[in-house]
Protein backbone atom coordinates (compact mmCIF):
# COMPACT_ATOMS: atom_id res chain seq x y z
CA UNK A 1 0.00 0.00 0.00
CA UNK A 2 1.58 3.29 -1.00
CA UNK A 3 -0.99 5.71 0.36
CA UNK A 4 -3.05 6.29 3.48
CA UNK A 5 -6.16 8.36 4.02
CA UNK A 6 -6.15 11.62 5.97
CA UNK A 7 -9.38 11.31 7.88
CA UNK A 8 -9.20 14.30 10.23
CA UNK A 9 -7.18 17.27 11.40
CA UNK A 10 -7.35 19.94 14.07
CA UNK A 11 -5.42 23.10 14.84
CA UNK A 12 -5.62 25.20 17.99
CA UNK A 13 -3.90 28.13 19.64
CA UNK A 14 -3.59 29.05 23.28
CA UNK A 15 -3.21 32.75 23.86
CA UNK A 16 -0.73 33.01 26.75
CA UNK A 17 0.84 36.49 26.88
CA UNK A 18 1.66 36.43 30.58
CA UNK A 19 3.25 32.99 30.36
CA UNK A 20 5.35 34.36 27.50
CA UNK A 21 6.26 37.52 29.39
CA UNK A 22 7.64 35.52 32.30
CA UNK A 23 8.79 32.26 30.70
CA UNK A 24 9.32 32.83 26.98
CA UNK A 25 13.02 32.13 26.54
CA UNK A 26 14.03 35.62 25.34
CA UNK A 27 12.52 37.55 28.28
CA UNK A 28 13.23 34.73 30.77
CA UNK A 29 16.94 34.54 30.01
CA UNK A 30 17.28 38.32 29.84
CA UNK A 31 15.70 38.66 33.30
CA UNK A 32 17.89 35.86 34.64
CA UNK A 33 21.16 37.20 33.27
CA UNK A 34 20.69 40.97 33.17
CA UNK A 35 17.84 41.84 35.52
CA UNK A 36 15.08 44.28 34.58
CA UNK A 37 16.43 45.78 31.35
CA UNK A 38 14.88 48.44 29.13
CA UNK A 39 13.49 45.73 26.82
CA UNK A 40 11.82 43.97 29.75
CA UNK A 41 10.35 47.19 31.07
CA UNK A 42 8.88 48.02 27.66
CA UNK A 43 7.63 44.55 26.70
CA UNK A 44 4.41 44.67 28.80
CA UNK A 45 3.25 47.70 26.78
CA UNK A 46 3.44 45.58 23.63
CA UNK A 47 1.35 42.62 24.84
CA UNK A 48 -1.89 41.87 23.03
CA UNK A 49 -5.28 41.34 24.62
CA UNK A 50 -7.11 38.08 23.91
CA UNK A 51 -9.41 39.86 21.45
CA UNK A 52 -6.38 41.17 19.54
CA UNK A 53 -5.03 37.66 19.10
CA UNK A 54 -8.48 36.30 18.24
CA UNK A 55 -9.01 38.96 15.58
CA UNK A 56 -5.56 38.55 14.02
CA UNK A 57 -5.97 37.18 10.51
CA UNK A 58 -3.05 34.69 10.60
CA UNK A 59 -4.46 33.14 13.80
CA UNK A 60 -7.87 32.78 12.18
CA UNK A 61 -6.26 31.13 9.16
CA UNK A 62 -4.50 28.69 11.50
CA UNK A 63 -7.68 27.55 13.29
CA UNK A 64 -9.74 27.52 10.11
CA UNK A 65 -11.81 30.57 11.01
CA UNK A 66 -11.16 31.72 7.43
CA UNK A 67 -10.06 29.90 4.30
CA UNK A 68 -6.67 30.65 2.80
CA UNK A 69 -8.40 32.39 -0.12
CA UNK A 70 -10.10 34.68 2.41
CA UNK A 71 -6.77 35.11 4.20
CA UNK A 72 -5.15 36.40 1.01
CA UNK A 73 -7.72 39.20 0.82
CA UNK A 74 -7.16 40.46 4.40
CA UNK A 75 -5.60 43.95 4.44
CA UNK A 76 -2.02 44.26 5.72
CA UNK A 77 -0.42 44.85 8.09
CA UNK A 78 -2.70 42.39 9.77
CA UNK A 79 -1.94 43.74 13.23
CA UNK A 80 -3.26 47.14 12.20
CA UNK A 81 -6.25 45.67 10.37
CA UNK A 82 -7.87 43.34 12.88
CA UNK A 83 -10.79 41.26 11.68
CA UNK A 84 -14.20 42.41 12.86
CA UNK A 85 -16.11 39.15 12.52
CA UNK A 86 -13.66 36.66 14.01
CA UNK A 87 -14.71 34.17 16.65
CA UNK A 88 -13.02 31.95 19.20
CA UNK A 89 -13.77 28.79 17.23
CA UNK A 90 -12.83 27.88 13.67
CA UNK A 91 -13.40 24.81 11.52
CA UNK A 92 -10.26 23.17 12.91
CA UNK A 93 -10.10 24.30 16.52
CA UNK A 94 -10.03 27.33 18.75
CA UNK A 95 -8.03 30.17 20.25
CA UNK A 96 -8.26 29.56 24.00
CA UNK A 97 -7.70 32.42 26.50
CA UNK A 98 -4.89 32.21 29.06
CA UNK A 99 -6.95 31.64 32.22
CA UNK A 100 -8.72 28.66 30.68
CA UNK A 101 -5.41 27.31 29.45
CA UNK A 102 -4.01 27.37 32.99
CA UNK A 103 -7.07 25.32 33.94
CA UNK A 104 -6.38 22.92 31.09
CA UNK A 105 -2.79 22.56 32.30
CA UNK A 106 -4.11 21.59 35.72
CA UNK A 107 -6.44 19.10 34.05
CA UNK A 108 -3.45 17.58 32.26
CA UNK A 109 -1.30 17.40 35.40
CA UNK A 110 -1.42 14.00 37.10
CA UNK A 111 1.50 14.61 39.51
CA UNK A 112 0.15 17.58 41.49
CA UNK A 113 2.68 19.87 39.82
CA UNK A 114 0.20 22.64 38.97
CA UNK A 115 -1.54 24.40 41.83
CA UNK A 116 -4.23 26.95 41.06
CA UNK A 117 -5.68 29.41 43.50
CA UNK A 118 -9.09 28.26 44.72
CA UNK A 119 -11.32 31.10 43.46
CA UNK A 120 -9.40 31.26 40.15
CA UNK A 121 -9.93 27.52 39.66
CA UNK A 122 -13.62 27.95 40.33
CA UNK A 123 -14.03 30.71 37.72
CA UNK A 124 -12.01 28.75 35.19
CA UNK A 125 -14.16 25.66 35.77
CA UNK A 126 -17.25 27.61 34.75
CA UNK A 127 -15.55 28.98 31.64
CA UNK A 128 -14.13 25.64 30.53
CA UNK A 129 -17.52 23.99 30.97
CA UNK A 130 -18.74 26.14 28.06
CA UNK A 131 -16.03 24.88 25.71
CA UNK A 132 -17.72 22.30 23.46
CA UNK A 133 -14.73 19.94 23.51
CA UNK A 134 -14.18 19.95 27.28
CA UNK A 135 -16.37 17.09 28.41
CA UNK A 136 -17.52 16.56 32.00
CA UNK A 137 -15.03 13.71 32.29
CA UNK A 138 -12.16 15.96 31.24
CA UNK A 139 -13.36 18.81 33.45
CA UNK A 140 -13.58 16.49 36.45
CA UNK A 141 -9.78 16.38 36.44
CA UNK A 142 -9.62 20.08 37.36
CA UNK A 143 -8.72 20.37 41.05
CA UNK A 144 -10.57 22.62 43.47
CA UNK A 145 -7.42 24.61 44.07
CA UNK A 146 -5.33 25.87 46.96
CA UNK A 147 -5.22 28.93 49.19
CA UNK A 148 -2.98 31.69 47.92
CA UNK A 149 -0.89 31.42 51.13
CA UNK A 150 -0.06 27.81 50.33
CA UNK A 151 0.92 28.80 46.79
CA UNK A 152 3.13 31.61 48.04
CA UNK A 153 4.94 29.20 50.38
CA UNK A 154 5.63 26.89 47.42
CA UNK A 155 7.02 29.84 45.44
CA UNK A 156 9.10 31.32 48.25
CA UNK A 157 10.36 28.16 49.94
CA UNK A 158 10.29 25.42 47.32
CA UNK A 159 11.24 27.34 44.14
CA UNK A 160 7.86 26.84 42.45
CA UNK A 161 7.30 29.15 39.47
CA UNK A 162 4.37 31.54 39.80
CA UNK A 163 1.60 31.47 37.20
CA UNK A 164 0.01 34.81 36.39
CA UNK A 165 -3.28 36.10 35.06
CA UNK A 166 -4.08 39.81 34.80
CA UNK A 167 -0.82 40.53 36.66
CA UNK A 168 -1.85 38.51 39.70
CA UNK A 169 -0.35 35.25 40.91
CA UNK A 170 -3.11 32.70 40.37
CA UNK A 171 -1.13 29.50 40.82
CA UNK A 172 2.26 27.89 40.52
CA UNK A 173 4.25 25.12 38.88
CA UNK A 174 5.87 23.04 41.61
CA UNK A 175 9.20 21.28 41.41
CA UNK A 176 9.19 17.59 40.60
CA UNK A 177 12.47 16.83 42.36
CA UNK A 178 14.95 18.33 44.81
CA UNK A 179 18.09 18.02 42.66
CA UNK A 180 17.06 16.69 39.24
CA UNK A 181 17.21 19.61 36.80
CA UNK A 182 15.04 17.69 34.32
CA UNK A 183 12.20 17.90 36.80
CA UNK A 184 12.60 21.50 37.88
CA UNK A 185 9.55 23.76 37.52
CA UNK A 186 10.62 25.48 34.29
CA UNK A 187 11.02 22.15 32.47
CA UNK A 188 7.75 20.84 33.85
CA UNK A 189 5.99 24.07 32.84
CA UNK A 190 7.24 23.61 29.26
CA UNK A 191 6.22 19.98 29.16
CA UNK A 192 2.80 20.38 30.76
CA UNK A 193 2.00 23.36 28.50
CA UNK A 194 2.98 21.34 25.46
CA UNK A 195 0.93 18.38 26.65
CA UNK A 196 -2.15 20.50 27.44
CA UNK A 197 -2.10 22.36 24.12
CA UNK A 198 -1.76 19.04 22.27
CA UNK A 199 -4.72 17.61 24.19
CA UNK A 200 -6.84 20.55 23.04
CA UNK A 201 -6.21 19.79 19.36
CA UNK A 202 -6.89 16.07 19.88
CA UNK A 203 -10.23 16.88 21.51
CA UNK A 204 -11.17 19.12 18.57
CA UNK A 205 -10.23 16.43 16.08
CA UNK A 206 -12.36 13.83 17.85
CA UNK A 207 -15.34 16.17 17.92
CA UNK A 208 -15.02 17.66 14.44
CA UNK A 209 -14.66 14.33 12.68
CA UNK A 210 -16.96 12.39 14.99
CA UNK A 211 -14.26 9.94 16.03
CA UNK A 212 -14.83 7.61 18.98
CA UNK A 213 -11.81 8.05 21.33
CA UNK A 214 -11.74 4.28 21.81
CA UNK A 215 -11.08 3.78 18.10
CA UNK A 216 -7.68 5.47 18.07
CA UNK A 217 -5.03 2.77 17.74
CA UNK A 218 -1.72 4.64 18.07
CA UNK A 219 -0.46 8.17 18.74
CA UNK A 220 2.82 9.68 17.55
CA UNK A 221 3.81 12.96 19.18
CA UNK A 222 6.33 15.27 17.52
CA UNK A 223 6.90 18.46 19.52
CA UNK A 224 10.37 19.75 20.39
CA UNK A 225 10.15 19.26 24.15
CA UNK A 226 12.05 16.69 26.18
CA UNK A 227 10.30 14.77 28.95
CA UNK A 228 12.45 12.67 31.23
CA UNK A 229 14.58 12.68 34.33
CA UNK A 230 18.30 12.96 34.95
CA UNK A 231 18.92 9.36 34.00
CA UNK A 232 17.12 9.70 30.67
CA UNK A 233 16.84 13.37 29.86
CA UNK A 234 14.30 13.12 27.04
CA UNK A 235 13.04 9.59 27.52
CA UNK A 236 9.45 10.53 26.65
CA UNK A 237 6.57 9.80 26.29
CA UNK A 238 4.27 12.72 25.48
CA UNK A 239 2.10 10.71 23.13
CA UNK A 240 0.71 8.31 25.69
CA UNK A 241 0.34 11.08 28.29
CA UNK A 242 -1.76 13.09 25.82
CA UNK A 243 -3.78 10.01 24.84
CA UNK A 244 -4.59 9.33 28.49
CA UNK A 245 -6.16 12.74 29.09
CA UNK A 246 -8.02 12.66 25.75
CA UNK A 247 -9.53 9.29 26.70
CA UNK A 248 -7.90 7.28 23.92
CA UNK A 249 -8.11 4.17 26.06
CA UNK A 250 -7.27 1.63 23.35
CA UNK A 251 -4.25 3.47 22.03
CA UNK A 252 -0.61 3.49 22.87
CA UNK A 253 1.97 5.88 21.51
CA UNK A 254 5.51 7.11 21.21
CA UNK A 255 7.38 10.32 20.36
CA UNK A 256 9.32 11.24 17.22
CA UNK A 257 11.83 14.09 17.30
CA UNK A 258 13.67 16.08 14.62
CA UNK A 259 13.41 19.75 15.53
CA UNK A 260 11.19 21.43 12.92
CA UNK A 261 11.41 18.35 10.71
CA UNK A 262 9.75 16.32 13.49
CA UNK A 263 6.15 16.62 12.31
CA UNK A 264 6.84 15.54 8.72
CA UNK A 265 8.94 12.62 9.95
CA UNK A 266 6.17 11.74 12.40
CA UNK A 267 3.61 11.81 9.58
CA UNK A 268 5.81 9.43 7.58
CA UNK A 269 6.28 7.12 10.58
CA UNK A 270 2.55 7.11 11.29
CA UNK A 271 1.55 6.59 7.66
CA UNK A 272 4.00 3.74 7.29
CA UNK A 273 2.50 1.95 10.29
CA UNK A 274 -1.00 2.33 8.89
CA UNK A 275 0.06 1.35 5.37
CA UNK A 276 1.79 -1.79 6.60
CA UNK A 277 -1.27 -2.83 8.53
CA UNK A 278 0.63 -2.62 11.82
CA UNK A 279 -1.89 -0.06 13.10
CA UNK A 280 -5.51 0.41 12.17
CA UNK A 281 -5.03 4.17 12.41
CA UNK A 282 -2.48 6.60 13.75
CA UNK A 283 -2.87 10.05 15.29
CA UNK A 284 0.00 12.51 14.80
CA UNK A 285 0.01 15.27 17.37
CA UNK A 286 2.12 18.10 18.78
CA UNK A 287 1.63 20.82 21.35
CA UNK A 288 3.32 24.20 21.57
CA UNK A 289 6.61 25.53 22.89
CA UNK A 290 6.67 27.96 25.84
CA UNK A 291 10.32 29.00 25.26
CA UNK A 292 9.51 30.28 21.78
CA UNK A 293 6.93 32.77 23.06
CA UNK A 294 8.24 36.29 22.36
CA UNK A 295 11.37 34.86 20.73
CA UNK A 296 11.59 37.91 18.43
CA UNK A 297 9.97 40.38 20.81
CA UNK A 298 13.14 42.45 21.13
CA UNK A 299 12.72 43.51 17.49
CA UNK A 300 8.95 43.92 17.80
CA UNK A 301 9.45 46.29 20.74
CA UNK A 302 12.21 48.14 18.90
CA UNK A 303 9.91 48.62 15.92
CA UNK A 304 6.97 49.79 18.03
CA UNK A 305 4.66 46.96 17.03
CA UNK A 306 2.70 44.46 19.09
CA UNK A 307 4.66 41.49 20.41
CA UNK A 308 2.88 38.96 18.22
CA UNK A 309 4.42 35.70 19.47
CA UNK A 310 1.90 35.17 22.25
CA UNK A 311 0.25 31.87 21.27
CA UNK A 312 1.14 28.23 21.75
CA UNK A 313 0.31 26.29 18.58
CA UNK A 314 -0.88 22.70 18.39
CA UNK A 315 -2.17 20.29 15.78
CA UNK A 316 -3.48 16.76 15.34
CA UNK A 317 -3.85 14.69 12.14
CA UNK A 318 -5.56 11.30 11.93
CA UNK A 319 -4.27 8.81 9.35
CA UNK A 320 -6.36 5.80 8.36
CA UNK A 321 -6.40 3.16 5.64
CA UNK A 322 -7.09 4.65 2.22
CA UNK A 323 -10.76 3.86 1.73
CA UNK A 324 -11.04 6.00 -1.39
CA UNK A 325 -13.05 8.83 0.12
CA UNK A 326 -10.41 10.96 1.89
CA UNK A 327 -7.39 12.82 0.49
CA UNK A 328 -4.34 10.60 0.70
CA UNK A 329 -0.76 10.94 1.83
CA UNK A 330 1.58 9.12 -0.60
CA UNK A 331 4.42 6.98 0.67
CA UNK A 332 5.96 5.98 -2.66
CA UNK A 333 7.89 9.21 -3.25
CA UNK A 334 9.09 10.81 -0.05
CA UNK A 335 11.59 13.65 0.09
CA UNK A 336 14.65 12.84 2.19
CA UNK A 337 17.57 15.15 2.93
CA UNK A 338 20.36 12.60 3.11
CA UNK A 339 23.58 12.90 5.13
CA UNK A 340 25.57 13.24 1.92
CA UNK A 341 23.26 15.71 0.18
CA UNK A 342 25.06 18.84 1.38
CA UNK A 343 23.75 21.77 3.36
CA UNK A 344 23.25 24.47 0.72
CA UNK A 345 19.65 25.59 0.12
CA UNK A 346 20.03 24.25 -3.41
CA UNK A 347 20.99 20.78 -2.17
CA UNK A 348 18.17 20.78 0.39
CA UNK A 349 15.53 21.92 -2.11
CA UNK A 350 16.70 19.34 -4.65
CA UNK A 351 16.48 16.54 -2.10
CA UNK A 352 13.08 17.56 -0.77
CA UNK A 353 11.31 18.66 -3.95
CA UNK A 354 13.11 17.60 -7.13
CA UNK A 355 13.96 14.03 -6.07
CA UNK A 356 10.38 13.02 -5.12
CA UNK A 357 9.00 14.69 -8.28
CA UNK A 358 11.44 12.71 -10.39
CA UNK A 359 10.62 9.51 -8.58
CA UNK A 360 7.02 9.82 -9.70
CA UNK A 361 7.73 11.28 -13.12
CA UNK A 362 6.07 14.58 -12.20
CA UNK A 363 7.02 18.13 -13.11
CA UNK A 364 7.13 21.14 -10.77
CA UNK A 365 3.90 22.25 -12.36
CA UNK A 366 2.10 19.02 -11.42
CA UNK A 367 2.00 20.17 -7.80
CA UNK A 368 -0.63 22.82 -7.04
CA UNK A 369 0.86 24.12 -3.80
CA UNK A 370 4.14 23.74 -1.94
CA UNK A 371 3.97 24.20 1.85
CA UNK A 372 7.21 24.72 3.73
CA UNK A 373 7.97 26.68 6.90
CA UNK A 374 4.73 28.62 7.14
CA UNK A 375 5.85 31.31 9.59
CA UNK A 376 3.70 34.43 9.72
CA UNK A 377 5.84 36.98 7.87
CA UNK A 378 4.82 39.89 10.10
CA UNK A 379 6.60 38.11 12.95
CA UNK A 380 9.85 37.27 11.17
CA UNK A 381 10.37 40.25 8.87
CA UNK A 382 10.94 42.85 11.63
CA UNK A 383 13.52 40.48 13.16
CA UNK A 384 15.56 40.34 9.96
CA UNK A 385 14.65 36.73 9.26
CA UNK A 386 12.80 37.54 6.03
CA UNK A 387 9.52 36.14 4.71
CA UNK A 388 10.30 32.47 5.23
CA UNK A 389 7.49 30.85 3.19
CA UNK A 390 8.11 33.31 0.35
CA UNK A 391 11.83 32.48 0.37
CA UNK A 392 10.97 28.78 0.19
CA UNK A 393 8.60 29.29 -2.74
CA UNK A 394 11.26 31.32 -4.55
CA UNK A 395 13.79 28.55 -4.02
CA UNK A 396 11.44 25.99 -5.54
CA UNK A 397 10.74 28.34 -8.45
CA UNK A 398 14.47 28.92 -8.99
CA UNK A 399 15.13 25.19 -8.96
CA UNK A 400 12.37 24.78 -11.50
CA UNK A 401 14.18 27.33 -13.71
CA UNK A 402 17.45 25.43 -13.31
CA UNK A 403 15.72 22.20 -14.34
CA UNK A 404 14.40 24.04 -17.39
CA UNK A 405 10.76 23.62 -16.40
CA UNK A 406 10.13 27.32 -15.93
CA UNK A 407 11.22 30.54 -17.64
CA UNK A 408 13.14 32.83 -15.30
CA UNK A 409 10.75 35.69 -16.09
CA UNK A 410 7.85 33.56 -14.82
CA UNK A 411 9.38 32.88 -11.41
CA UNK A 412 7.18 35.27 -9.47
CA UNK A 413 4.04 33.96 -11.20
CA UNK A 414 5.05 30.48 -10.03
CA UNK A 415 5.58 31.83 -6.51
CA UNK A 416 2.16 33.52 -6.49
CA UNK A 417 0.38 30.49 -7.89
CA UNK A 418 2.07 27.71 -5.95
CA UNK A 419 3.39 29.39 -2.82
CA UNK A 420 1.55 30.17 0.40
CA UNK A 421 1.38 33.17 2.69
CA UNK A 422 2.54 32.11 6.14
CA UNK A 423 0.00 31.93 8.96
CA UNK A 424 1.67 29.94 11.73
CA UNK A 425 3.30 31.06 14.96
CA UNK A 426 7.08 30.81 15.23
CA UNK A 427 6.78 27.71 17.38
CA UNK A 428 9.55 25.73 15.70
CA UNK A 429 7.91 22.46 14.69
CA UNK A 430 4.45 24.03 14.32
CA UNK A 431 5.02 26.07 11.10
CA UNK A 432 6.88 23.34 9.23
CA UNK A 433 4.38 22.46 6.49
CA UNK A 434 1.82 20.70 8.69
CA UNK A 435 -0.50 23.69 9.25
CA UNK A 436 -1.42 23.40 5.59
CA UNK A 437 -2.65 19.79 5.80
CA UNK A 438 -6.15 20.83 6.92
CA UNK A 439 -6.63 23.56 4.32
CA UNK A 440 -5.12 21.32 1.62
CA UNK A 441 -7.40 18.40 2.41
CA UNK A 442 -10.45 20.68 2.37
CA UNK A 443 -9.43 22.15 -0.99
CA UNK A 444 -8.80 18.66 -2.41
CA UNK A 445 -12.17 17.43 -1.16
CA UNK A 446 -13.80 20.45 -2.82
CA UNK A 447 -11.98 19.73 -6.08
CA UNK A 448 -10.04 23.01 -5.95
CA UNK A 449 -6.65 21.31 -5.75
CA UNK A 450 -5.31 17.98 -6.91
CA UNK A 451 -1.90 17.63 -5.35
CA UNK A 452 0.21 19.47 -2.76
CA UNK A 453 3.58 18.90 -1.18
CA UNK A 454 4.27 19.26 2.56
CA UNK A 455 7.89 20.06 3.43
CA UNK A 456 9.56 20.09 6.85
CA UNK A 457 13.08 21.26 7.65
CA UNK A 458 14.94 21.01 10.95
CA UNK A 459 18.03 22.73 12.37
CA UNK A 460 19.68 19.67 13.91
CA UNK A 461 22.93 21.58 14.51
CA UNK A 462 21.31 23.42 17.43
CA UNK A 463 21.80 20.33 19.61
CA UNK A 464 25.60 20.33 19.03
CA UNK A 465 25.58 16.69 17.93
CA UNK A 466 26.05 17.30 14.21
CA UNK A 467 26.46 20.23 11.89
CA UNK A 468 23.79 18.79 9.61
CA UNK A 469 20.28 20.02 9.12
CA UNK A 470 17.42 17.73 8.13
CA UNK A 471 14.35 17.74 5.99
CA UNK A 472 11.57 15.50 4.73
CA UNK A 473 8.57 15.90 2.45
CA UNK A 474 5.52 14.08 1.13
CA UNK A 475 2.67 14.49 -1.32
CA UNK A 476 -1.00 14.81 -0.44
CA UNK A 477 -3.47 14.28 -3.26
CA UNK A 478 -6.92 13.21 -4.25
CA UNK A 479 -7.56 9.53 -3.61
CA UNK A 480 -7.72 7.40 -6.72
CA UNK A 481 -11.20 6.51 -5.50
CA UNK A 482 -10.31 2.86 -5.13
CA UNK A 483 -9.50 1.56 -1.68
CA UNK A 484 -5.78 0.83 -1.48
CA UNK A 485 -4.75 -2.82 -1.28
CA UNK A 486 -3.38 -3.90 2.08
CA UNK A 487 -0.09 -5.65 2.68
CA UNK A 488 0.48 -8.41 0.11
CA UNK A 489 0.02 -11.93 1.51
CA UNK A 490 1.52 -15.25 0.40
CA UNK A 491 -1.84 -16.17 -1.07
CA UNK A 492 -1.88 -12.93 -3.11
CA UNK A 493 1.55 -13.78 -4.53
CA UNK A 494 0.45 -17.38 -5.33
CA UNK A 495 -2.67 -16.11 -7.08
CA UNK A 496 -0.68 -13.60 -9.14
CA UNK A 497 1.85 -16.25 -10.20
CA UNK A 498 -0.93 -18.65 -11.17
CA UNK A 499 -2.64 -15.91 -13.19
CA UNK A 500 0.63 -15.07 -14.95
CA UNK A 501 1.32 -18.72 -15.71
CA UNK A 502 -2.23 -19.04 -17.06
CA UNK A 503 -1.60 -16.08 -19.37
CA UNK A 504 1.65 -17.64 -20.64
CA UNK A 505 -0.14 -20.94 -21.24
CA UNK A 506 -2.88 -19.16 -23.20
CA UNK A 507 -0.39 -17.26 -25.32
CA UNK A 508 1.57 -20.45 -26.09
CA UNK A 509 -1.59 -22.20 -27.24
Amino acid sequence: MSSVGIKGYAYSLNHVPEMGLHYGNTPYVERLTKGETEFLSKLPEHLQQYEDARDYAPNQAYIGGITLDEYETQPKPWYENRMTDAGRYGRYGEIMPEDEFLGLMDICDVFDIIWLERSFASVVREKLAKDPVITDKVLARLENGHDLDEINVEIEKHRALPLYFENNVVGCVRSGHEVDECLFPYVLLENLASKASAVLSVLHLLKNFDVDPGEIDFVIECSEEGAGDMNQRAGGNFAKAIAEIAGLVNSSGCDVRGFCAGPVNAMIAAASQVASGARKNCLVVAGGAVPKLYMNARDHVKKSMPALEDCLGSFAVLLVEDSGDSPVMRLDALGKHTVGAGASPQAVTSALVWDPLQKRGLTFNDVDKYAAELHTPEITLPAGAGDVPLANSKMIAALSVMKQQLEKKDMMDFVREKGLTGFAHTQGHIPSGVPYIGHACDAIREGKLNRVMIIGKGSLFLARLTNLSDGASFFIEKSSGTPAVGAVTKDDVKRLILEALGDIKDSLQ
Partner: protein
Amino acid sequence: MDLQNQQRIKDAAEKYNPEDLVVILGSSDAEGAEIYAETVANGDPTFAGPLAGVQLGLAVYHVFEEDVKSEADTAAWEEQISMMEMVLDPDSLAAAVAAMRKEYSRYSL
Protein backbone atom coordinates in the same frame (compact mmCIF):
# COMPACT_ATOMS: atom_id res chain seq x y z
CA MET B 1 25.76 38.10 14.80
CA ASP B 2 25.36 35.47 17.48
CA LEU B 3 27.77 35.51 20.36
CA GLN B 4 29.42 32.18 19.56
CA ASN B 5 30.27 33.22 16.02
CA GLN B 6 31.70 36.47 17.34
CA GLN B 7 33.90 34.47 19.71
CA ARG B 8 35.02 32.14 16.89
CA ILE B 9 36.07 35.08 14.75
CA LYS B 10 37.81 36.80 17.66
CA ASP B 11 39.71 33.56 18.43
CA ALA B 12 40.71 33.15 14.77
CA ALA B 13 41.93 36.75 14.61
CA GLU B 14 44.09 36.13 17.69
CA LYS B 15 45.42 32.80 16.43
CA TYR B 16 46.19 33.87 12.86
CA ASN B 17 47.45 37.07 11.34
CA PRO B 18 44.34 39.28 10.80
CA GLU B 19 45.77 40.30 7.44
CA ASP B 20 45.45 36.69 6.31
CA LEU B 21 41.86 36.31 7.46
CA VAL B 22 38.82 36.86 5.24
CA VAL B 23 35.25 36.62 6.51
CA ILE B 24 32.77 35.47 3.84
CA LEU B 25 29.11 36.10 4.58
CA GLY B 26 26.16 34.22 3.12
CA SER B 27 23.42 36.31 4.71
CA SER B 28 20.15 36.51 2.77
CA ASP B 29 19.20 39.88 4.17
CA ALA B 30 21.03 43.12 3.34
CA GLU B 31 20.38 44.71 6.73
CA GLY B 32 21.69 41.61 8.49
CA ALA B 33 24.71 41.43 6.18
CA GLU B 34 25.59 45.02 7.04
CA ILE B 35 25.48 44.31 10.76
CA TYR B 36 27.63 41.16 10.38
CA ALA B 37 30.16 43.04 8.27
CA GLU B 38 30.28 45.92 10.73
CA THR B 39 30.72 43.47 13.61
CA VAL B 40 33.84 41.78 12.22
CA ALA B 41 35.37 45.05 11.01
CA ASN B 42 34.41 47.67 13.57
CA GLY B 43 33.01 45.72 16.52
CA ASP B 44 29.57 44.56 17.65
CA PRO B 45 27.19 47.53 17.19
CA THR B 46 24.76 46.01 19.69
CA PHE B 47 27.51 45.86 22.34
CA ALA B 48 26.24 42.43 23.37
CA GLY B 49 28.98 40.06 22.27
CA PRO B 50 32.71 39.37 22.52
CA LEU B 51 33.40 41.79 19.65
CA ALA B 52 31.80 44.76 21.43
CA GLY B 53 34.36 47.58 21.16
CA VAL B 54 36.85 45.29 19.35
CA GLN B 55 37.87 46.73 15.98
CA LEU B 56 39.39 43.77 14.17
CA GLY B 57 39.27 45.54 10.79
CA LEU B 58 38.98 42.17 9.02
CA ALA B 59 38.42 41.85 5.30
CA VAL B 60 34.75 40.93 4.87
CA TYR B 61 32.91 39.98 1.68
CA HIS B 62 29.53 38.65 0.71
CA VAL B 63 29.76 35.39 -1.19
CA PHE B 64 27.97 37.09 -4.11
CA GLU B 65 30.72 39.70 -4.55
CA GLU B 66 32.64 39.22 -7.79
CA ASP B 67 36.00 39.01 -5.97
CA VAL B 68 34.78 35.87 -4.18
CA LYS B 69 32.69 34.40 -6.97
CA SER B 70 35.58 34.55 -9.42
CA GLU B 71 37.68 32.44 -7.02
CA ALA B 72 35.04 29.72 -6.78
CA ASP B 73 35.02 26.48 -8.74
CA THR B 74 32.41 27.01 -11.47
CA ALA B 75 30.84 23.58 -11.15
CA ALA B 76 30.61 23.82 -7.34
CA TRP B 77 29.10 27.30 -7.66
CA GLU B 78 26.53 25.99 -10.12
CA GLU B 79 25.69 23.04 -7.88
CA GLN B 80 25.62 24.85 -4.54
CA ILE B 81 24.92 28.55 -4.99
CA SER B 82 23.48 29.48 -8.39
CA MET B 83 19.91 28.75 -7.33
CA MET B 84 20.14 31.27 -4.49
CA GLU B 85 21.45 33.89 -6.93
CA MET B 86 18.01 33.73 -8.53
CA VAL B 87 16.18 33.80 -5.19
CA LEU B 88 18.06 36.64 -3.47
CA ASP B 89 19.15 40.08 -4.62
CA PRO B 90 22.91 39.51 -5.08
CA ASP B 91 23.69 43.08 -6.11
CA SER B 92 22.19 44.72 -3.03
CA LEU B 93 23.77 42.13 -0.73
CA ALA B 94 27.17 42.65 -2.33
CA ALA B 95 26.80 46.43 -2.17
CA ALA B 96 25.75 46.37 1.49
CA VAL B 97 28.86 44.42 2.56
CA ALA B 98 31.20 46.33 0.24
CA ALA B 99 30.06 49.63 1.78
CA MET B 100 30.78 48.39 5.30
CA ARG B 101 34.17 47.06 4.21
CA LYS B 102 35.13 50.37 2.68
CA GLU B 103 34.15 52.19 5.84
CA TYR B 104 35.62 49.91 8.49
CA SER B 105 37.97 47.20 7.15
CA ARG B 106 41.72 47.68 7.34
CA TYR B 107 42.39 44.73 5.03
CA SER B 108 41.03 43.47 1.70
CA LEU B 109 41.65 40.70 -0.82
